[in-house]
């Protein structure tokens, strides 16, 4: 029923899927949650370090990395893809820093040059070796979570526990969260005050490169589900939404989890209703949450600002009227 929007029958879109195929939709929601969460966790730091554009860059420039990794190994094993992605991520970071540091070119321009060039090289590799590279450009760019094969289970102690893609994504999320917990202090102080961090002996370059490696792995794992373009939204949206609600960093991390969970759920149902790309609907759901936070945030929302101004004016008027000069 493409080309039109189905009427909004809540029971059909909210309950039906869970009655028909609870396991199938369950894995999709879990996968969407894990993708959004791992992106959101690392994305918090991108937002706070004013590096949102770097997330954009890495998400595109890992393409040649995985293409080369595939050409060399003839395998789509997640470990090999991750190695390719890390190599491409480190190369991107290295190129950006050197173009920016060793010429008059500013950082935003250096980012713009680097990631587009690397992405173009990736596109060339894929098209030239089209027969050999089993990577679909469409899939790399847009991804589609519903096309992910959820039937290939990973077994632990002889028991199937989860489909392989979900298992890998869960592992990536756990590693990301674990690294953030382990290096919490270093990441916090180096994001807030790089001068102090440096004087305390924390190597800023190491922190930066380490973060880019984690980002590359997260992005490449999210590729299949959401693609290179929409992954940028997943990196930034949870962080900025949480940033609008709280003033405390630990709470921001917790809110990232909430945002990921809500956008996965809402996105799934939006996708079922509109019969559209699930990746797109998850991102739109995430953006919707951002807009809600922007307007209704108790501490800094638009509504509060308007009310505050209104009340202030009212007070000023009653004071002016109440006391005849």
């Amino acid at each position, binding site marked *: 029923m493409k080309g039109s929007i189905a009427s909004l029958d809540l029971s059909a879109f909210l309950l039906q899927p869970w009655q028909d195929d609870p396991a199938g939709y369950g894995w999709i929601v879990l996968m969407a949650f894990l993708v959004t969460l791992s992106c959101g966790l690392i994305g918090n730091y991108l937002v706070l370090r004013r590096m949102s554009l770097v997330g954009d860059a890495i998400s595109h420039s890992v393409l040649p990395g995985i293409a080369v990794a595939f050409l060399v190994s003839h395998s789509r094993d997640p470990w090999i893809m991750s190695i390719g992605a890390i190599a491409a991520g480190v190369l991107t970071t290295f190129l950006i820093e050197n173009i920016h540091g060793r010429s008059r070119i500013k950082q935003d321009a250096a980012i713009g040059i680097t990631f587009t060039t690397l992405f173009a090289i990736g596109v060339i590799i894929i098209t030239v070796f089209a027969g050999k590279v089993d990577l679909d450009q469409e899939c790399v760019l847009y991804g589609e979570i519903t096309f992910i094969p959820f039937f290939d289970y990973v077994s632990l102690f002889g028991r199937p526990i989860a489909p392989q893609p979900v298992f890998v994504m869960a592992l990536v999320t756990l590693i990301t969260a674990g690294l953030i917990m382990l290096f919490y202090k270093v990441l916090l102080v180096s994001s*807030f005050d790089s001068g*102090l961090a440096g004087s305390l002996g924390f190597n800023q370059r190491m922190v930066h490169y380490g973060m880019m490696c984690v980002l590359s792995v997260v992005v490449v794992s999210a590729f299949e589900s959401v693609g290179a373009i929409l992954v940028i939204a997943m990196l930034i949206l949870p962080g900025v939404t949480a940033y609008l609600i709280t003033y405390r960093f630990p709470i921001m991390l917790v809110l990232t989890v909430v945002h990921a969970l809500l956008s996965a759920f809402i996105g799934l149902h939006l996708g079922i209703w509109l019969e559209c790309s699930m990746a797109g609907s998850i991102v739109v759901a995430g953006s919707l949450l951002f807009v809600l936070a922007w307007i209704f945030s108790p501490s800094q929302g638009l509504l509060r600002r308007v009310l505050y101004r209104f009340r202030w004016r009212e007070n000023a008027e009653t004071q002016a009227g109440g006391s005849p000069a």
Partner: protein
Amino acid sequence: MNPSNPPLEIHDMTVAYHKRPVLYGIDLVVPGGKLVGVVGPNGAGKTTLIKACLGLLPLSSGWVKYFGQAYRESKSRVGYVPQRESVDWDFPVNVSDVVLMGRYGKTSLFMRPTREDRAIARECLDKVKMLPYADRQISNLSGGQQQRVFLARALAQESDVYFMDEPFSGVDAATETAIIELLHELRDQGKTIIVVHHDLPTAKEYFDMLLLLNMRVVAFGDTEEVFTSELLQRTYGGRLTILSEVVDVVKQQEER
């Protein structure tokens, strides 16, 4: 450790940005228990000097030693107050989070702040009269309050040598007085404090020693000896407005 080793010794330090030298051949021995002001025109390399001492910038030549040891071995004895404008005050942390960062160098990288760390942080906040603001988000602070928080963080570092980059810029008069009192107190405890300062008239009042800097060391010594119109003119070169200000200050000094 040899007690005769000075808290800070710089030998033949040269620092360059993009192959253009910003500081040349700096030689300096700072004795203990002194409050030292670093004075010079814009672009003289004052901030660069501090950053190079803290290992934040690579040296083209020379070395820096603290109590006879390289920075790497002595970083827990060195505290730093960067320029207030160098950080994003919208960052989602509160006042005590910032002060606790001063304790990060004291414990293992992976350990959470201990109860002792928190107690010290509160003590330091109390010293700068910011304890009532401990849970306040940092973007809701005035310039003077922000500077006090930075100072409390430096105190929490419990260092022997401090570098402070323009701690008096953009603060209210009460904060300025509070900071200078605190610096005198630290000095009386035998700590060495090196402060980049912009304002010449107060520089004379505040500091025991002055370093007149303009890419090279123009002069370094006790304030009374160094604060002369001749040396200040050499430091500030042909900048007339500053020069006339300098002449006024020196004149006032001679009239007293």
